[in-house]
């Protein structure tokens, strides 16, 4: 067993070295410190720690201190000392010391000292690894719970997906994270993306059609693609996506299917730039857990929304039934009563008044019938949601998401006007995307009893007469058709910017839709 050297000086130095190594919890600091301490302990000019591969087939990496005697061609000539470093009974690496000061040979005492230090280092390495693993797990479990809460809290789905990718990106210390979901048409489309490069946002809306994406999705297993410096992308499809989001080809890309049971609802794509392969490697397992949890939560929240929509439908059904069975029957009965009363009424004035009342009741019944019919129409997406959806569709060409505010009585907008309203916003945003070079766009829709007002304001370069006429003429025509107006103000502020005001009155022209 271990024999400690007799010299108390040596023991004191050993204790210092053990403390120095044992107090460190970061492996990147601990290992160089171990090598330096070992050199100091026995007066070696050169030290190295060769870390073994898992299968002990060779050295995975080395940590060195001092001038490598191998490089000087002196190895074999000078004294050397090799001591294994064991972690939990397994060989972790070999601590090699060489070139003792004064050209002396290493003594048995030296060997005992380094063995003692290596023993302490083994425990410190184990601690550091466990701590790092615990921290990583903690980060991931925080990310998972935050993401689940966001998805289930009923907030806007796009915001929740944005949070989903940004938490994945930060927990994985990645440079890009994107989520692609399988739509109703079976296509895989990127729904949210975030990354260090501002261009990351521009890949939102990109369909992932190459067969490799679908093969990974169907396999349900994460795939880690790694490309070294100087190489092309590790997979052509992933390479295209990296390039589109502003990442170089060289680096790591994890494709992680999001699975619920045996089905897969989408792919989480996480990418790292450069050579930091270790973090990508360590993230493969937690990323899969994260993706699967996200899949379950997304499915649950979509079921929640379906349920809410179902409840609305059921409510409408019930109201329609009540109106038909109760209200109309009662009005009908009242009408019949009035008609028979009219027959026996002597005075023509009374007869006329009763006939008028019956006509009114008939009209009321017709109104109610029309409402019941309207209630039976399939539930359409609420107008504010539709406007928001449309505006967010411009996130890619604009490079940012427009700010959207829709207020007022959304139900009063008839179908024809609704289509025009959406067309106007689409045209206005596409103008901003093409010409304005804006950093911000505000879409403001106000609906009250008298009018619908749309305002689209940007902080871009301002309006110039050329090039934007055709679209504007179109907007003008649409306004005129509803008896409304369109106005373009530029600059809106000191620095430029453009504001489009489009307003149409609500009333006679559109009451029938």
């Amino acid at each position: 067993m271990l024999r400690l050297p007799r010299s108390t000086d040596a023991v004191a130095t050993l204790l210092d070295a053990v403390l120095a190594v044992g107090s460190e919890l970061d492996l990147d600091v601990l290992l160089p410190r171990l090598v330096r301490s070992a050199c100091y302990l026995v007066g070696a000019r050169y030290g190295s720690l060769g870390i073994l591969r898992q299968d002990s087939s060779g050295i995975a990496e080395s940590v060195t201190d001092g001038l490598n005697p191998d490089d000087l061609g002196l190895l074999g000539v000078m004294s050397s000392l090799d001591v294994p470093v064991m972690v939990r009974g397994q060989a972790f690496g070999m601590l090699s010391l060489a070139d003792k000061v004064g050209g002396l040979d290493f003594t048995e005492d030296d060997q005992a000292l380094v063995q003692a230090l290596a023993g302490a280092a083994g425990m410190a390495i184990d601690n550091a690894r466990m701590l790092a693993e615990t921290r990583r797990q903690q980060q991931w479990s925080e990310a998972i719970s935050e993401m689940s809460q966001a998805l289930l809290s009923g907030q806007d789905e796009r915001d929740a997906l944005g949070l989903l990718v940004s938490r994945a990106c930060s927990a994985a210390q990645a440079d890009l994270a994107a989520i692609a979901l399988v739509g109703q048409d079976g296509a895989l489309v990127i729904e949210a993306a975030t990354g260090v490069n501002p261009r990351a946002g521009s890949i939102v809306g990109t369909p992932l059609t190459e067969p490799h994406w679908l093969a990974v999705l169907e396999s349900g297993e994460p795939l880690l693609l790694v490309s070294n410096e100087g190489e092309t992308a590790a997979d052509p499809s992933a390479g295209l996506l990296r390039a589109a989001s502003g990442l170089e080809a060289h680096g790591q890309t994890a494709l992680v299917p999001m699975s619920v049971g045996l089905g897969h609802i989408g792919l989480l794509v996480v990418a790292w730039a450069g050579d930091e392969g270790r973090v990508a490697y360590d993230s493969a397992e937690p990323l899969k857990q994260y993706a699967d949890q996200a899949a379950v939560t997304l499915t649950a929240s979509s079921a929640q929304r379906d349920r809410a929509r179902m409840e609305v439908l059921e409510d409408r059904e019930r109201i329609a039934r009540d109106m038909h069975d109760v209200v109309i029957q009662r009005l009908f009965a009242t009408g019949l009563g009035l008609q028979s009363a009219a027959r026996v009424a002597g005075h023509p004035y009374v007869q006329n008044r009763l006939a008028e009342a019956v006509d009114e009741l008939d009209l009321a019944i017709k109104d109610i019938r029309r409402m019941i019919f309207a209630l039976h129409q399939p539930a359409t997406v609420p107008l504010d949601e539709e406007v928001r959806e449309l505006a967010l569709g411009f996130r890619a060409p604009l490079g940012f998401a427009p700010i959207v505010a829709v207020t007022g009585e959304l139900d009063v907008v008839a179908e024809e006007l609704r289509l025009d309203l959406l067309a106007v916003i689409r045209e206005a945003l596409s103008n901003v995307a093409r010409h304005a070079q804006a950093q911000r766009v505000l879409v403001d829709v106000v609906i009250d009893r008298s009018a619908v007002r749309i305002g689209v304001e940007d902080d871009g370069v301002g309006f110039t007469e050329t090039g934007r006429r055709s679209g504007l003429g179109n907007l003008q025509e649409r306004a005129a058709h509803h008896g409304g107006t369109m106005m373009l103000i530029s600059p809106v502020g000191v620095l430029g910017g453009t504001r489009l005001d489009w307003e149409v009155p609500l009333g006679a022209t559109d009451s029938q839709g």
Partner: protein
Amino acid sequence: MRSHSAIPYRPGQSGDVVAGLLNDGRAEAVARVAVAEAQRRGARLRFVQVVDQDVTPEERADADQATFRAAVRALRGYRGIPCRFEVVTGDPTDTLVDLARSAAALIVGADDSPRSLALRIATLVSCPVVAVPVQAA
């Protein structure tokens, strides 16, 4: 299945394990052996599909799809193995010999002919060459 190597993968630390895949129905068996080898070595796994010069773009795409799927199936259960996928046009022997120069190991399918691909390659490279036998159907 949780499969974590104690040695973190560091690019450039060692040669890759190269899986030479041909669209001959044996790609998955070759890929399986390559996956296990890469896992054991903590090395990157490079799937190289070699196609003839005279194939049409459609045939090339078909071959790429088939072997990619085979590789993905072989990776099932192994997480965090760093991979790379390439399609190379050329002669299988020349291409694989070229790739094997910097590789830690080369995995190819075995065939019965006395001048088999694996044998030809093994005489020309210094890294271990694994010839995966055809599974009896």
